[in-house]
C-alpha cells in the first residue's frame, strides 16, 4: 500500500509517533530535527528523553497507544538494542505498533533488522520526505490493526 492512500484513518486522531534512543547514546541532533519535521507534517510526536531502557520505551509506547516507535542509534549498538525493543513487543503480544529505525546502520545490517519487523533504517542524508512517507505507511498498517480493519 502506498503511503497516504488511507489518510482517513487519521482524521480523528493524527499519526502518533514515539521517538526514542534506547541504549547509551546522546547523539540527539537528528531526533530533534525529526521531532520538528514530524510535527510540521501534522503528527503527534512524543520523545522518550535520553537513555531510556528498552522496557521504558515499550511501556511508553503502549501507555500512549502510539502508532509507530521510531528508534535511533548512532553508537553501533542497533543490532542488540533495537532487537531488545522488538523482542519485548513480541513478548507482550503487541502487533498494532510499528517499529522503524534509523542512524548509522550499515547496509549489511538492514535485512537483519527487517527480519525483526524494524523497517526504514535510514542513514545520514536521507530526505525528511522519505522518512515521513515511510512513517505514514507504517502508521497506516498499525492503525488499521488497532481499528480491526487490517
Amino acid at each position, binding site marked *: 500500500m502506498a503511503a497516504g492512500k488511507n489518510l482517513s484513518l487519521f482524521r480523528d486522531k493524527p499519526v502518533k509517533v514515539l521517538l526514542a534512543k534506547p541504549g547509551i547514546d*546522546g547523539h540527539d541532533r537528528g531526533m530533534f530535527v525529526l*521531532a520538528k*519535521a514530524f510535527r510540521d507534517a501534522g503528527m503527534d510526536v512524543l520523545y522518550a528523553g535520553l537513555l531510556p531502557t528498552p522496557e521504558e520505551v515499550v511501556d511508553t509506547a503502549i501507555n500512549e497507544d502510539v502508532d509507530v516507535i521510531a528508534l535511533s542509534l548512532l553508537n553501533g*549498538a542497533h543490532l*542488540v538494542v533495537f532487537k531488545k525493543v522488538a523482542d519485548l513487543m513480541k513478548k507482550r503480544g503487541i502487533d498494532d505498533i510499528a517499529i522503524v529505525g534509523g542512524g548509522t546502520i550499515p547496509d549489511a545490517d538492514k535485512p537483519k533488522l527487517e527480519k525483526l519487523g524494524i523497517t526504514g533504517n535510514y542513514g545520514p*542524508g536521507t530526505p525528511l520526505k522519505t522518512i515521513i512517507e515511510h512513517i505514514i505507511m507504517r502508521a497506516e498498517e498499525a492503525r488499521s490493526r488497532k481499528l480491526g480493519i487490517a
Partner: protein
Amino acid sequence: MVDSSSFWSEKLKNIEERNKSEDPQYKKWKKEVLEKWNPGSEEKEFINSSGIPIKELYVPGDLHGDLNERLGYPGTFPFTRGIYPDMYRGRLWTMRMFSGFGTPEDTNRRLKYLIQHGESGLSIAFDMPTLYGYDCNNERAEGEVGKCGVNVSTLKDMEVLFDGIDLGRVSTSMTINAPAIVLLAMYMAVAKKQGVPLDRISGTVQADILKEYIAQKEWIFPPEVHLRMIRDMMVFCTESAPRWNYISISGYHIREAGASAVQELAFTLADGFHYVEMGLNAGLSADDFAPRLSFFFNSSINFFEEIAKMRAARRIWATVLKEKYGARNPRTMMLKFHTQTSGYTLTWQQPLNNIIRTTIEAMAGVLGGTQSLHTNSYDEAWALPSENAVKVALRTQQIIAEESGIADTVDPLGGSYYVEWLTDEMEKQAYSYFDRIEKAGGILKAIKTGYIQKEIANTSYRRQLRIEEGKEIMVGVNKYVEENEPPIKILRISKKAQLSQRKRLNDVLASRDQEKVRRSLERLEDAMKDESVNLMPYMIEAVESYATIEEISNIGRRLYGGWKEPVIV
C-alpha cells in the same frame, strides 16, 4: 571581577558603533559598475552558517576604528593573529588523531601504530558505558562495549591501555567528561606505577560538563555535582600536576549538535567564563589557573567563517580575561585550542569526497591558528575509522604542513578586508549572545531552562530545511547524487571486546582486596558529602584499590540522583 550586568551590554554597544559601515567609493562602484555588469546579482542569497549575509566585495571602508589595536602582533594582546610570535615556523601544530575502540589491547596497538607514523600526541576515545560511568558487565552496556571507543571499567584496563607507553614522554588527551575525575585518577595511578611524578605528566581531560548539558548529553549527576568535581581537579592540578589541562572547553559538540559558528563561539566562551568564575570563587586568581584552560573548536566547511570564528575567539577571550577577570599575565589571556574537522559535514554518500571536505576544514583550522588538529577519516559517517582511512587523514595534515606552504607565515589572511570584517562581525554577535545569556540569568540557568538547547535545535532544523529545499548544497546528498553506490569496507567491532572485557573485570573483582575497596569507597563517600573537601586524593585511592568506575559513580548516584533535561521540543 567587574560587575556583569553592564559589562556585556556596554561592550556590545561599543562594537556595534565600531562596526557601522559606510564607504562612499564602494557605493559608487556598486551603482555604476556592478549593477550594470550583472543587474540580477542581488537575487541569489549568500549567507554563512551563522546567518550573516555576505556582500559581493569587502573594502577598506568596512574596517573601522583602530585595526592595529584589535589585531595586535602575533604573541601580543589581544592575540587575534595568533598566540605565539612565530606560530608554525617555530613549531608545527600537534597532529593529534583521536582514537580508541574495542579492548584496551586494541587501542594500545592503534596508539603505538600512530606514534610510529609520526603522530605527536595521543588522544583517546572511550566507549559509551565508560562515558556514562557504567561497568562493561552492566546490562545497559550490552552491545556497546568497545563500540565508540575503548572500554575502561577499572585501573587494570588503564594499565593495559598505556602498556609500553612512557607517560613521562607523551601528552595524552582523554575525551571523557562526566567521569573525568575517575579517569584522571586512573591516569595518575598508572603514572605512579611507572614511576613518573605527577608534575611530569602532561595532557588533557575534556571534563567540560556544561557542553554536555548543552549538546553531547553525557552526564551522570545534576550539574552542580559535576561542577564541584571540576573545581576539585582544577585546584588539585594547579597545586600538584601543573602540566595537566583539567578541562578542554568544547565548542565541537555544540556545533555538531546543530549550532551555527556564532553560536558555537558564543556558547563555548560563555561556558569558559563560567569556569573562570568558578576558579575565582574557589579562591584562585585568574593568573593562577586560567593559563591551563584550553579550548576545542569545530572546523566546518564554510572556510572563511571558521577562520574568522577562531580569530574572534582569541580576541574576545584575551579582552574579557583582562578587563573583566583581572588577568595580568599575558599567558592567562591566550586562548589555546584544539581543532577537529566537522563530522556533521561528512557524507555517507560518495565517501571519498569526505577527504576533500576534511582538507578544506583542516586548512581553516591551520589558518585560524590552532595548536593541535584532528582530521576526520573519510569513512566516519559510516563507522569508526579503518586504519587506512586514518592514515589518509593524518597524511592530509602532513601535506598541509609540509607541502602547501600555508604554515610559512603567521596569520596569512590577516588584513584581508573580508576576513577582518567577518572577524569583527562574529565578535559583535558573540557579545550580543553574552548579553542575552546574562539577561537570562547566566549560562547555567540558560542551560537548565533549555534556552541554549532551543537556540541550537532551531538553527539545526532551519539548516535541515535549507538542505531539503536545495538552498544549501551537500554534494552527493542533494546534488550530483549517484544511484547504487558500492558499499565501502568499514571497521567492525567484534563481540569479542565485550567478552574479553567482562572476563577481565570478573578477574579483577575476584582478585582484589575487598576490604580495601570497601574502605576506600567509604572514605570517598564521606568526602563527597563535604563540599569543602577536595575529592581528587580520594578518587586516586579508590581507583588504586581497583574499585570500578560504576562503583565510584554509584556513590554520587545514591547521594544526588541523575538529571532530567528540560523539554525542548
